[in-house]
């Protein structure tokens, strides 16, 4: 009995020692030398692995930051400028100037504005529904309201409003990671400049039908009347394929277009209630203010 125990301990420890030596040499041979700064950079990242930066995960983004020697084209939309500053400090580089963005839902077709014409009772999935048919309303461009964007959001920042059955973006949570933009089969969601004090002006419609047809299916559709284009003092609005689009780089948030839109297809967000006297004033917000938020 005693000797069995002795032999067992002896043989096991011999095997252990030999293996340890072999493993040590293998480890030396196949050693991967990695920049320790990658770990440091990874530590300051949000570690959400959302892919919003264009890389598969946070680790890959950290590697890219370290290897590229220039942060101009790299940006973590989740961490924002604060994180980029931290990364810049670790690497001793300059962080690129990035304008904060936000996802914007460009459809206002609530059931009141856009009556239902059919009932859809298959899988609650926008991609499947859009492959089956154009949608349960007269507008083939409008939101299906089945929530592919909600499912795609890793930050719980987009939800379907029960009343309007349209998705709404939580502006405090949205990180502009682009996931919902990719998930929407109708291409309704767009990333736009977040704007000073979260103020934005955008055309909340992507219907490319002629005015009369668009209006027939939805009360708040863009009918391409060109009024906004004529009104805009900054040439920010273009009308193409019977649809107006506001270029957020040129827009100075004067809101003149909002006032003239006959179908209220142009929306403004987070502006204080407007007084009549303000209508003819020059724009309050300038481009410089835009970038500082």
């Amino acid at each position: 009995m005693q000797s069995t125990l002795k032999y067992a301990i002896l043989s096991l420890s011999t095997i252990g020692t030999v293996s340890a030596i072999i493993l040590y040499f293998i480890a030396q041979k196949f050693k991967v030398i990695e920049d320790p700064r990658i770990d440091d950079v990874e530590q300051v990242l949000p570690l959400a692995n959302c892919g919003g930066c264009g890389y598969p995960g946070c680790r890959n983004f950290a590697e890219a930051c370290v290897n590229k020697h220039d942060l101009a084209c790299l940006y973590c939309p989740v961490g924002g400028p604060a994180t980029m500053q931290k990364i810049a400090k670790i690497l001793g580089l300059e962080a690129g100037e990035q304008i904060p963005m936000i996802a914007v839902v460009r459809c206002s077709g609530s059931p009141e504005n856009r009556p239902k014409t059919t009932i859809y009772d298959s899988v609650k999935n926008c991609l499947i529904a859009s492959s089956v048919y154009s949608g349960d309303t007269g507008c083939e461009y409008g939101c299906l309201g089945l929530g592919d964007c909600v499912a795609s959001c890793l930050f719980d920042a987009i939800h379907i409003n029960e009343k309007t059955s349209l998705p709404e973006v939580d502006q405090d949570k949205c990180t502009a990671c682009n996931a919902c933009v990719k998930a929407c089969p109708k291409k309704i969601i767009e990333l736009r400049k977040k704007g000073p004090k979260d103020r934005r002006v955008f055309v909340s419609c992507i219907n490319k039908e002629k005015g009369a047809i668009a209006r027939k299916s939805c009360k708040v559709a863009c009918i391409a009347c060109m009024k906004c284009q004529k009104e805009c003092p900054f040439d920010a609005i273009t009308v193409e394929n019977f649809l107006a689009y506001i270029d957020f780089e040129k827009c100075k948030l004067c809101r003149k277009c909002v006032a003239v839109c006959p179908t209220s297809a142009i929306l403004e967000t987070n502006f204080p209630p407007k007084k009549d006297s303000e209508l003819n004033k020059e724009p309050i917000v300038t481009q410089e203010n835009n970038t500082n938020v």
Partner: protein
Amino acid sequence: MSKGLKTFPVGGVHSCDNKLSASKQIESVALPTIVSIPLSQHIGAPAMPIVKPLDKVKVGQLIAKASGFVSANIHSSVSGTVKKIDDVPDSCGYKRPAVIIDVEGDIWEENIDRTDSLLKEIIFDQKSIIEKIQAAGIVGLGGATFPTHVKLSVPKGKTCEYLLINGVECEPYLTSDHRLMLEKTEEIFVGIIIVMKALGVPKAIIGIENNKKDAIDKMSAISNNYKGISVQALKVQYPQGGEKQLAKALINREIPAPPGLPIDVGCVIQNVGTIYAIYEAVQKNKPLIERVVTITGKSIKKPSNFLARIGTPISILIQATGGLPEDTGKIISGGPMMGKAINTTDIPVSKGTSGILVLPEELSNRKNANNCILCAKCVSVCPLGLEPYLLSKLSLKSLFDKAENEQVVNCIECGCCSYNCPAKIPLLDFIRLAKTTVMKNIRNRVK
């Protein structure tokens, strides 16, 4: 009796036939006042319009040219003035370009033979038959709308041994092919001879399901007069009209997975409707401008088979059966298994419209889906031997690479799995998503 009949060995379902309009003769309907003829009625590139607004057109005049080999010509089905070329909603509700014509009178192109006389003698050679079929814009009328001239052009290095004729009409409710076989029997046989000549095959087999006994009897009797053509009665089993299932049932050969084609196992398969259109195109110079459409449904007053011009709004056909019943919940273009629900009756009849099925409210809504209990009923009915429950789960989780490994591209979208699922899971909806995504991935990889 039906035990000894041939069929395909794997899967399939047998639902109620509901062939309500089987005894109704093919009728023609009054001409509509306006038609919209879609430019994309076939698989492949849409046709290019060659008419302008205000042009006068005659019945049978070419109005849009095929824009490639896999594409088909489109002819005017009416005479009148071209109103405009505009986007109109298709059966899915998406806007597609179409030629809209105001109907004036009924003036036909002079070279079209409009008599009922049977022309048996075939004066054309192989090449000119295929050219005539191509010029007439004929596509597979069984529903897939694949341009027929492409099918008949046998690629080099491959030989065709059999021509298989699909007179199965396995979809419940639909009777357009059944009526054609009864009313245009001789014409169909001449059509088969034409296609046999075009392909250079000695043998043709017509497969007909056993629920169409009158058609089997009539076709068998006449087949004695034609050398090389035989009629085979088949057991009633959906989806026997699928190419793979029909080839297996008739000649016991297995068509390989896509991109495999029937020609890979030495056969070409044509629908009886297509054969009749070929007869008319080759012998009577008549392009594909009308087709038989079944308008049916349990609530429809007078289920009927209509010979409708392409471009006729479906609402006119429904009106001719006694109007849309009040309790209508769903209108399906095609049969109940593979058809598509449509959201308006304004859509036009196209080359692929085999029937319109009107369902009352109580039959329209899907039952609520429950959880999968892994009973494998979907596996047992899948005619391709796939595992629908697995494919649908992979699709739900967006694991499309795994779905590709599970051969999702083999799916023929017959809907047996969804039909048979006791938990009422819309399996096919998920699988279709996976299939289209995987096909797209494969195409991108080839590029």
